[in-house]
């Protein structure tokens, strides 16, 4: 049986009176790529932020590698080292070069020597195809290149799992492909990934499981084949049809 890396049980998050999700369960096995889809405002980003402890859930537990990270007294900074996060709008450190962005965590968190950190960072940049842009600042890179630096920055920490929050939705259509290609490669290499995206081509091809969330509930989850071809709920079919229609065109342009 595959080992679960991430287990979420009974997770509840509220902002004031506003319940974002309630009693949410989700398991991610080692090496899996899970794609989360769902309408805007459904709580997808909030879920990722809970997993990364960037926000505190109100109730429920999250385990990473059989350690409860929502437990009191958890060293949050330590947990985050093991969870890579890629943001919709990249959020690179604008005052640092591509190399500097990837190196910062190695330097300050992992306390590597400068030489080691540079080597490792260059390796990660090469992985996303940007070794030749190491000394460029974010402002000198295209959106697609910035996002790939964002991925390299997260990868450098050798995370157990990578979270992607709509990594391509801020990109021009012609730049989406290069980012998805890097993610596809990561999945092939066996990285465990939890991806919020509307790119249905990617979901169909790469996902081991697609999770459809709506209004804070997981409506349905299953393999791409099950979800696209035999969804249990009409709502799932409806939504998948809608975003394929909506984003399909953009995707074609990207190819």
């Amino acid at each position, binding site marked *: 049986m595959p080992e679960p890396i991430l287990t979420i049980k009974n997770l509840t998050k509220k902002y004031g009176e506003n319940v974002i999700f309630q009693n949410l369960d989700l398991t991610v096995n080692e090496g899996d790529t899970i794609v989360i889809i769902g309408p805007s405002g459904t709580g997808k980003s909030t879920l990722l932020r809970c997993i*990364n402890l960037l926000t505190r859930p109100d109730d429920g537990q999250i385990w990473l590698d059989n350690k409860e990270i929502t437990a009191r007294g958890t060293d949050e900074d330590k947990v*985050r080292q093991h969870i890579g996060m890629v*943001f919709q*709008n990249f*959020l690179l450190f604008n005052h640092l070069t591509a190399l500097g962005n990837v190196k*910062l965590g190695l330097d*300050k*968190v992992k306390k590597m020597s400068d030489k080691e950190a540079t080597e490792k960072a260059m390796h990660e940049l090469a992985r996303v195809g940007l070794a030749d842009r190491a000394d460029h*600042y974010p402002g000198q890179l295209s959106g697609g290149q910035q996002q790939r630096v964002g991925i390299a920055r*997260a990868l450098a920490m050798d995370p157990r799992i990578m979270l992607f929050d709509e990594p391509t939705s801020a990109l021009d259509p012609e730049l989406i492909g290069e980012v998805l290609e890097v993610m596809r490669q990561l999945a092939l290499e066996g990285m465990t990934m939890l991806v919020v995206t509307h790119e249905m081509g990617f979901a169909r091809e790469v996902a081991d499981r697609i999770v459809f969330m709506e209004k804070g509930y997981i409506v349905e989850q299953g393999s791409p084949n099950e979800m696209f071809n035999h969804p249990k709920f009409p709502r799932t079919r409806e939504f998948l049809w809608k975003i394929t229609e909506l984003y399909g065109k953009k995707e074609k342009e990207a190819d």
Partner: protein
Amino acid sequence: MLTWLGYFERFGKNFLHGAGVTLELTAIGLAIGFVLGLLLALARCFGPKWLQQVAGAYIAVFRGTPLLVQLFIIYYGLPEIGIAFSQNMAAYLALGLNSAAYQAEYLRGSINAIGAAQMQAGRSIGLSKWQTIRYVILPQALRLALPSWSNEPISLLKTTAVVFLIAVQDLMAEGKRAATATFDFVGVYLAVALVYLVMVFALDALLKFLERKTKIPGMDIETSR
């Protein structure tokens, strides 16, 4: 008509000495103000609630009252409760404490602008809150603040002129002495004004240089305006 230029020959040495003191007051006031202002801005942006309030109150009081009143309280008032300063020390302190309030506001604005998003990015790779502030937020916020913060050194340089009132021997005090000696108030103070002007221009050039030097490649938005 330009006879007042002759005062540079007669009082040049005094003016030069006074200008030196003025620059010293500016530099020390600015340095105290920067360190304290940075702490205040950090307290306001990242501190616990009570600390935010303390910092907020400090800023409100020092921006809301005249510098001269602050100077007199420090120089004449504090000795009554047993804390006495030399004239220069009182001047450094008043200028620094006052400037801190203004600098805190400049810095707070840009820290907020860099803000929560960069904090998330920093934390996401495992940096602690303070590491993120130190290595991610401040390097960007300080650069962002520079163009508007540059008003402060210039404004402070001119503001230092009030300290002649507690007999600090700055440029203004030297001017006053020369004016009393010659009875030519207009001429002497024109000469003094010219010295201030030269210092302001030089400082301005220095700040522009600093702005160019610290510019982040590829980020032209601020400077192209």
